[in-house]
């Protein structure tokens, strides 16, 4: 996994009383547990339906934007984790979703391993440094082995939401 040093001053990982900014963006209703799909394409479609319905976006447009980003290079990180993301026209604020898959799916990740969990971020068209920091934060969170293990053991969306809220950088 890549090295990074997030620099968002208000909520820097490792800083005192840092609040995980991802937890604030991720209500339990945006979390899908044990989604049963056979491929990356189907997973992105399911995410389009979930976030489209909850935030008034066209599901097909969400799936297409996420797929376009994947074409630049897989958003798989390794160790079964991925962070699909996309810039969306007309979006005013960041939308996050999380999907845990029933069985891992092929994802062209750098370690060639299939992916079992995806954090999804939709960001406004005019991207800022803040959005890159959110991605960096997510990468660091998924690099934490204990977090990955606990993620697999969560019983439901509420538990996953609480896990995100409790996570602090080591």
């Amino acid at each position, binding site marked *: 996994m890549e090295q990074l040093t997030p620099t968002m001053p208000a909520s820097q990982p490792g800083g005192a009383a840092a609040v995980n900014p991802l937890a604030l963006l991720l209500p339990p209703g945006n979390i899908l547990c044990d989604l049963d799909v056979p491929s990356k394409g189907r997973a992105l479609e399911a995410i389009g339906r979930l976030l489209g319905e909850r935030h008034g976006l066209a599901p097909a447009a969400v799936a297409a934007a996420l797929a376009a980003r994947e074409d630049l290079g897989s958003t798989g990180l390794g160790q079964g984790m991925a962070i699909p993301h996309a810039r969306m026209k007309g979006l005013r604020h960041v939308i996050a979703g999380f999907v845990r898959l029933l069985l891992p799916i092929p994802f062209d990740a*750098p370690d060639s391993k299939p992916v079992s969990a995806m954090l999804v971020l939709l960001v406004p068209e005019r991207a800022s440094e803040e959005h890159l920091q959110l991605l960096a934060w997510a990468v660091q969170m998924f690099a934490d082995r204990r977090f990955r293990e606990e993620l697999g053991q969560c019983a439901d969306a509420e538990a996953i939401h609480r896990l995100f809220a409790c996570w602090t950088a080591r």
Partner: protein
Amino acid sequence: MSIRHKAQILAEALPYIRGFHGKTFVIKYGGNAMTEAALKNSFARDVAMLQLVGMNPVVVHGGGPQITELLGKMGVQSTFRRGMRVTDERTMNVVEMVVGELNQEIVGLINQHGGKAVGLSGQDGHFIHARKMLLPPEGDGKDATDIGLVGDIERIDTELISLLHTRGFIPVVMPIGAGAEGEAFNINADIVAGRLAQTLRAEKLILMTNTPGVIDRRGERVTALGVGEVDALIADGTIHGGMLPKLAAAVDAVKGGASSAHIIDGRVANALLLEVLTSEGIGTMIRGDNGPHFLADSKRYLTAPDAA
């Protein structure tokens, strides 16, 4: 564990088996995994299983400690130059005898667990072409240092290995190469494994060691490294000692065409299954600088002028 839970675990292996079906894995076998009875059985079971679910393993082994032990019993002191065993004719006879015996033992173990292993030396079908290795002169000397019958690999013909794979056999290779006149050369097993992984364009080169992998300055295992990051870690002393030749074999393999190389802990039971069939992997992965790099790709994407 309930039957339901067991079934779930088996079902979870499917995506990994599917992803690696028909792919070649070159496994350098050595360390404790080759000397402790329980680990030997676990290794042989893992190799048989990987083949039976559709992958193409190749096992490469050396026999360094066992060779040194037998020479010692014969009253011969082993000498090394830059990690290479100085090999005169008597030593070469011992090398061939010891690695040949180990080879048959490994073949037998894999076969006991349901695999179809075939023992090979680089002389079989003349598939490893070797030439005498010459080390640069030492001290003030002008002549190359002669270390006897130690070989460098000239080239490898993969036809024999591919033929065995197409019929479901598992090649088990001892590190003996053949010179132009058919003479035998002793070759370092890490080098043989690395070159085989390159030539076969293997999915993974897996080096089984007695370490947890590359350890960083905080004492934690590094899970992944790009080939471009290795030099800096050697320069600052993070990678040192016995890890250096392993890293060199890994970097060469990846630069030469293997998808990735893995330095794993052979002291862990079922090390191979954990590495290949679970999300975590158990050692350090070395991969090429090509392919996706999440943060760099994301930065490029987020700062491009037009959104989709």
